[in-house]
């Protein structure tokens, strides 16, 4: 089930508090911020939490999703800091954005690309996913901007980062979405890439805002 980002973050906090720190319950004041009431209602409706005046308890039904929310968050942190080499502060901020965009498919790929990490950059454990249990060929994965890729290089779209909504809309209507296979056909004087069976030409400015995961065999 999909929740609002607020709700997902509440789940994370609850899970960390109860499962990792072993608190039996969590104090309500942690969630006093404005706008959180609606998210809490969402979770209550789904039967994920119970709440009285002071305390909130994460119920059995919500644990699975809460665990995966934490996993997403910490994977995103690893990704931002280890792969993108962002500093802690920007890394944290980008991770908070990115974690909500992870689809199961993308999550698996990122986890694989990071080598199924056990801990996040802050040293907290990352709950294991199904993919971590399977052993397979480990590949080093490098994240590149589309504009930096060479002709013939392949990969999968990680995400798009642009402040310009119209640019984002254009990329999306051409089929550029996280997780999609992408390959570069030529990269000068403009970038022409293939996604699905469509070839698209974009200028360097647009190509810069697409981040692609490329594989490099070890």
């Amino acid at each position: 089930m999909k929740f609002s980002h607020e709700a997902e973050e509440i789940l994370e906090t609850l899970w960390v508090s109860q499962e990792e720190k072993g608190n039996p319950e969590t104090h309500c004041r942690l969630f006093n911020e404005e706008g959180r009431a609606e998210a809490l209602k969402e979770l209550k409706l789904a039967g994920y939490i119970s709440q009285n005046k002071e305390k909130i308890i994460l119920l059995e039904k919500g644990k699975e999703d809460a665990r995966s929310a934490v996993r997403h968050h910490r994977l995103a942190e690893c990704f931002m800091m280890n792969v993108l080499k962002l500093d802690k502060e920007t890394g944290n901020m980008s991770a908070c954005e990115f974690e909500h965009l992870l689809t199961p498919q993308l999550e698996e790929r990122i986890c694989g690309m990071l080598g199924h990490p056990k801990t996040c950059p802050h040293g907290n454990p990352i709950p294991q996913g199904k993919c971590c249990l399977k052993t397979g060929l480990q590949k080093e994965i490098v994240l590149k901007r589309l504009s930096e890729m060479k002709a013939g290089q392949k990969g999968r779209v990680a995400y798009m980062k642009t402040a310009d909504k119209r640019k984002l809309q254009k990329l999306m209507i051409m089929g550029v979405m996280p997780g999609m296979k992408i390959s570069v056909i030529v990269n000068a004087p403009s970038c022409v890439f293939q996604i699905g069976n469509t070839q698209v030409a974009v200028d360097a400015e647009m190509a810069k805002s697409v981040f692609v995961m490329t594989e490099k065999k070890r």
Partner: protein
Amino acid sequence: MTEKNKIIIVGSPNVGKSLIFNHLTGSYSAVSNYPGTSVEVFRGIMKYEGSEFEVADTPGMYSLMPVTEEELVARNILFEEKAVAVIQVVDAKNLERMLVFTLQLIEAGLPMVLAVNMIDEAEKLGITINAEKLQTNLGIPVILTVATDGKNLEALKSAAVLRADFKQTPLDFSYSQAIEEKTRKVSDLLGREYELSKKTVSLLLMVEDAEIIKVVCADEKNNCEAIKKETTALTDKYRAPMNYLITAERQSKASAIYEDGVTVTKAGRLAFNEVLSRFTMNPWTGVPIFILCIFLLYEFVGVLGAQVLVKYFEEVIFGKYINPPVETFVKHFITWPVLQDLFVNKYGIITLGVRYAVALILPIVTTFFIAFSIIEDTGYLPRLAMLIDRVFKKFGLNGRAVIPIVLGFGCNTMATIVTRTLETKRERVIASFLLALAIPCSAQLGIIFALLSGVKALAIWLIVMISVFVVVGWLTAQLLPGEKPIFYMEVPPLRLPKLKNVFVKTYTRVEWYFKEVFPLFIAASVIIWVGNLTGIFAVLVKMLEYPMQWIGLPKEAAVAFLFGFFRRDYGAAGLYDLKLHGLISGVPLVVAAVTIAIFVPCIAQFAVTIKERGIKAALLMAAFIFPFAFFMGWLVNTVLTLLKVTI
């Protein structure tokens, strides 16, 4: 007459909508192999077992949230017009991506029929589509078609007509809880019903579609603020743009439906057209290929059209078979010389108007349109666009503008209409201006090539024109404020043009052009006759003789320039006559060719510029172009004289 039932065709650019429209209605709208040919809504009548339907072919759109002006046109039709069926045409090769739009259309509550087109091309790539599964999953009729061969188009016709009898319930797709809930809240605030469902309207409001916000706020004066509050509350809650999140959810649903209904076997090795395609896009091979194309174009239009055919028409058809008998005939029946002049002699309707239009202009324009149709249908233009994008950026345009600019070498009027495919107002203004200023049309070009027969003269003329384009283009971009253009364009596969399509397209374009030109040429003959008769013409010519002499031209050229007010090509054709009579040659000929090429756009182009860009912009352009043409003439003359260049 009662209003006919409507069928609307929608879909992304370059998926075959126009071909399907042509088949359904039996009429013709331009079909080509580059995205964005249909800039207008074409409407036609379709007959089905005795009843008639109105079919509308909309410009290409990728989603219900428009990016360009033409997408907005297409969306407004869906927003405002009630249809018995909406046919979405999709490219079978890119079904996964295009299903996202299908989901959006179904959600809008439209009576959808899905035409999965180009299944032949998809099959070659190893893609097999199960129409029944798609139909079950989507809950709408799905027809697999090959529009170029007419395959299954009759089935599509009946599916559209009998849409009301299709009893499956369309897919009801729900988003994650928070989005769903908000959508319901916004829907409840909407009082008025639109042709698109309230859910769709609400979602568009949430992704902050400016146009929809405007429309809704005009209708819902009381609720406008409440609606805005709801939507911003949601937007603030998420860190990623709403549009991205909603699209991502649709995409994962679309992918699931795609995976259920489609099987893909491994594709074979790179096809020949793909190899060639890469050569056209690599700058090292792409630029030579471009130069080769220009050369072939010159050989075909400049040599075959403008020299061989024009000569044949002029000397044999008109010189031997038409003019002498007509002259004898007219002189036999009309004894009054004044009236004789109306039909024959130097400026007569037959000897001047008809001769210019048929013998001079027709062969050149026809050969250009044949060549353009071939280039267009191969899919070469988007490749040229990606090669040239960086250069065009300097002029405040992007690679996409290559289409109107290249078309402008055929007919500037047509090209000015096509500037609609450009994204921002700024780009449209710059493109219209450069078309009016520095792009000579094929009729003009043909005659200019004939005028400047020497390599040296032609080279000087080319250098001057290219410099004008570059310098004025660059300056315009500096002077006109606005955001930087963004270049993005789908690159369709290279295809071998279909002879029939090239023929039909050329025919339609020439017909359009001729209808435009012919009456003007006849009118010009009549006006000149009246002008001569009343003496007004003599006064005007006298007045124009001064600027002629300033830029070093013989005063006889004034007549040609006066013609130029009617159409630029008419003016050029007048120069051509002067050259034949030996009145002008050498440097003045180059000067004249430069001046007339920059000079006013023809009347038709001017009218279209007013219509598309507004009277203010059009007048400003004209106010610059008139004096600038003479200035450039003067400059070229002065420089060439100073440098003692002889031609």
